[in-house]
């Protein structure tokens, strides 16, 4: 919805109106929600005082569901219908999921994204994540006492386009207005940097339940500039649990059993791993009871069983340092994030690599959500004095397929976003009116080794002789790390139509259907609420347009002004007289569309003014 309130950068349009905005860390094993209250970021607890919500959803036979702790308790007896670690499935096909056979639930290969078979039918990981997000949204609204204006959701820095889009779709399903997706290590750096008033170069080592990220940032006066990032979106504490579980099986001479047994073994492995963080030796029998389990695990056994995983972490850190063109001793501090960084072998490996002890003074479980909350508060316009600026990078290169299955790179990894790159294409046949493009993401030279993002079909190219058309395709990566593609034939100026076929992710009508299904309220309630919301939105749009016209009406030609006036008149009449929410929404949308060019012109004028003002002052 195009709102037209343009104010000075960094200032809230209405200083008296506080907007409730939260940060959400949607994690593999657990999730948190945090908000800035009385100037301080804090994680919001549930009714029992717990801030962590296990990222687990259990679908019950009758149609109900359990989320969080209740679902976790049911995991052992109903493993098939209890979905944990859904984050690892986001934006993924069946072939992408390692250890699919070791999961306690059953995966179904679906076009676009894998799904989980449950007693309530097939569930997309997006729907599962939406349940978790909706639970946190409810928790936040209960704690803060009002509806949320929006949320910042964190994603692993190394998430690709499909994984980011899937996260955004889940938020939409949960009824959240996404202010921004921010990268988990960047969020941690915000919480850490602002807390410690740090300046200089910092590394964030983030080993979560299922994902691993390393980011190197330069912190200067509220600017968080990511220099390089890297990671593995399929490496985390979960894998340490699995490796230990495999070791326990082998050591006990048993074989993996049914789903419930596998779930019990995994739970035991996790508990043993946690115990080994503080003691050198653990008696297996205290956690896992089948015959043959009467032995002890030494910390050194665990370290040996997971040495290959730790080695992958270390290799990634080295690569990121190389990308940043920095030596380990140039990094002033290493911030540890994620519960899995409690493992002593991780702390030792990191200390050895950087030649200094890592910083662990912030709770590694909470730091990401806290940083996200600070960012959300500022994005919502509540913190006029805040001058936080995040300059993040794209984690994986974007390329297009060329002849012979080769990749031509268009945006290299670690480039600061937002970024736009243009590439010119031409036709190879006389009269050709369409062109197909295949966009991939990854560092390898062959298309088959990269991840397919989408196939774009450009249509409506004016017919010309072969090689005469100049089609400029613009690839824009926004601040969330999401790709947008536009195309224009340069000679005729014709805008090509683009049909996008994403390789992974949900189609728009899938999302619409899931939204429909998620409405559990009685229909009459829904209709009444929709009407109220539509009227509020119409009023807001009218007010914003009115004040924009008063401020900058001079930017409009008389005809443009008349068109906008007519749209306002029509919306006013419909909002006052109609009982039909859809009609009011349509009129609001018409006004939004009719004022879009005006909004863009105002924005441009405002930016030009700001930039030239700066120039004069610096000269």
């Amino acid at each position, binding site marked *: *919805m*195009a*709102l*037209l*309130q*343009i*104010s000075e*950068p*960094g200032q*809230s*349009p209405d200083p008296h109106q506080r*907007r409730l905005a939260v940060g959400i860390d949607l994690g593999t094993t657990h999730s948190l929600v945090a908000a800035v209250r009385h100037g301080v970021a804090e994680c919001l607890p549930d009714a029992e005082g717990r801030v962590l919500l296990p990222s687990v959803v259990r679908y019950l036979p009758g149609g109900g569901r359990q989320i969080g702790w209740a679902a976790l308790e049911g995991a052992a007896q109903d493993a098939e219908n209890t979905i944990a670690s859904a984050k690892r499935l986001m934006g993924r096909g069946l072939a992408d999921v390692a250890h699919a056979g070791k999961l306690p639930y059953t995966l179904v290969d679906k076009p676009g994204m894998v799904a989980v078979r449950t007693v309530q039918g097939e569930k997309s990981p997006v729907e599962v994540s939406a349940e978790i997000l909706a639970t946190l949204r409810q928790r936040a609204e209960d704690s803060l006492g009002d509806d949320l204006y929006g949320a910042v959701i964190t994603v692993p820095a190394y998430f690709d386009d499909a994984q980011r889009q899937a996260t955004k779709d889940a938020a939409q399903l949960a009824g959240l207005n996404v*202010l*921004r997706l921010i990268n988990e290590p960047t969020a941690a750096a915000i919480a850490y940097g602002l807390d410690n008033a740090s300046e200089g170069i910092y590394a964030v080592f983030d080993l979560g339940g299922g994902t691993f990220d390393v980011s190197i940032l330069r912190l*200067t006066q509220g*600017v968080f*500039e990511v220099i390089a990032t890297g990671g593995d979106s399929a490496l985390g504490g979960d894998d340490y649990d699995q490796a230990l579980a495999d070791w326990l099986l082998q050591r006990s001479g048993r074989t993996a059993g049914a789903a419930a047994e596998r779930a019990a073994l995994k739970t035991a492995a996790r508990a043993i791993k946690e115990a080994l963080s503080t003691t050198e030796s653990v008696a297996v029998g205290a956690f896992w009871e089948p015959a043959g389990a009467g032995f002890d695990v030494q910390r050194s056994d665990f370290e040996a069983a997971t040495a290959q995983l730790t080695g992958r972490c270390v290799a990634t850190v*080295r690569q990121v340092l*190389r990308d940043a063109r920095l030596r380990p001793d140039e990094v002033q501090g290493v911030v540890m994030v994620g519960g899995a960084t409690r493992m002593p072998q991780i702390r030792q490996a990191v200390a050895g690599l950087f030649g200094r002890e890592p910083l662990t003074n912030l709770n590694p479980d909470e730091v990401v959500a806290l940083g996200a909350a600070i960012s959300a508060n*500022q*994005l*919502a*316009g509540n913190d006029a004095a805040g*001058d936080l*600026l*995040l*300059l993040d990078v794209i984690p994986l290169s974007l390329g297009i397929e060329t002849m012979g299955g080769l990749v031509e790179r268009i945006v290299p990894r670690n*480039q*600061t*976003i*937002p*970024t*736009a790159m243009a590439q010119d294409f031409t036709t190879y046949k006389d009269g050709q009116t369409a062109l197909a493009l295949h966009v991939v993401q990854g560092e390898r030279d062959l298309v088959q080794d990269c991840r397919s993002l989408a196939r774009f079909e450009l249509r409506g190219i004016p017919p010309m002789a072969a090689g005469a058309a100049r089609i400029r395709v613009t690839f*824009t990566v*926004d*601040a969330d790390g999401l790709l947008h593609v536009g195309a224009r034939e340069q000679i005729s100026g014709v805008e090509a139509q683009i049909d996008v076929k994403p390789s992974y992710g949900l189609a728009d009508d899938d999302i619409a259907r899931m939204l429909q299904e998620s409405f559990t309220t009685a229909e009459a309630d829904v209709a009444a609420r929709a009407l109220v919301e539509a009227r509020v939105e119409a009023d807001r749009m009218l007010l914003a347009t009115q004040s924009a016209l008063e401020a900058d009406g001079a930017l409009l030609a008389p005809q443009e002004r008349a068109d906008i006036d007519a749209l306002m008149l029509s919306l006013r009449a419909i909002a006052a007289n109609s009982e039909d929410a859809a009609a009011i929404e349509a009129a609001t949308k018409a006004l*939004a569309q009719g*004022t*879009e*060019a005006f*909004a*863009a012109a*105002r*924005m*441009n004028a405002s*930016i*030009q003014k*700001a*930039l*030239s003002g*700066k*120039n004069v002052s*610096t*000269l």
Partner: protein
Amino acid sequence: MNLQSTDFELFGLPPRFALDAGALDVRWKELQRQVHPDKFAAQGAAAQRVAMQWSARINEAYRRLKSPLQRAAYLCELNGAPIDAENNTAMPPAFLMQQMELREALDDAASADDLEQIASQSASLQRDMLSKIEQQTDAEQAWPAAAQSVRALMFLDRLAADIDRRRDALD
């Protein structure tokens, strides 16, 4: 100022090759503070789109100005001497000879010490070429000659990148 302004105009800098890298970084962050889409998060889709265009344009200009090679190429282009490296491959024989020798040495390098020796040779050639370019652009405004030096610098940069790759492989 608009989206079509030159990189130098956007950053309020004189169109010269010599440049204060620290000041460029500071200016980049100042500009992003004005235009970054996050500054307009609460102001609707149209404002977001325009801010994203500006922000991406500022990042593009920053990347080009920050890289000596790209900055030199851009200056030559602005002054009517495009680099056009694909169609303009003629290089002095002595330069090509030197490049071939260095490449052979790189192929034969067996130890980290060998590699460091080639790296320091390559770095010194890059430095020399950059001061030559500064002379040709800022002092002499000899644009076609500067463009030729930029093409030579492209060879040197590729060599340096290959040396880096070999170093990484040794790590």
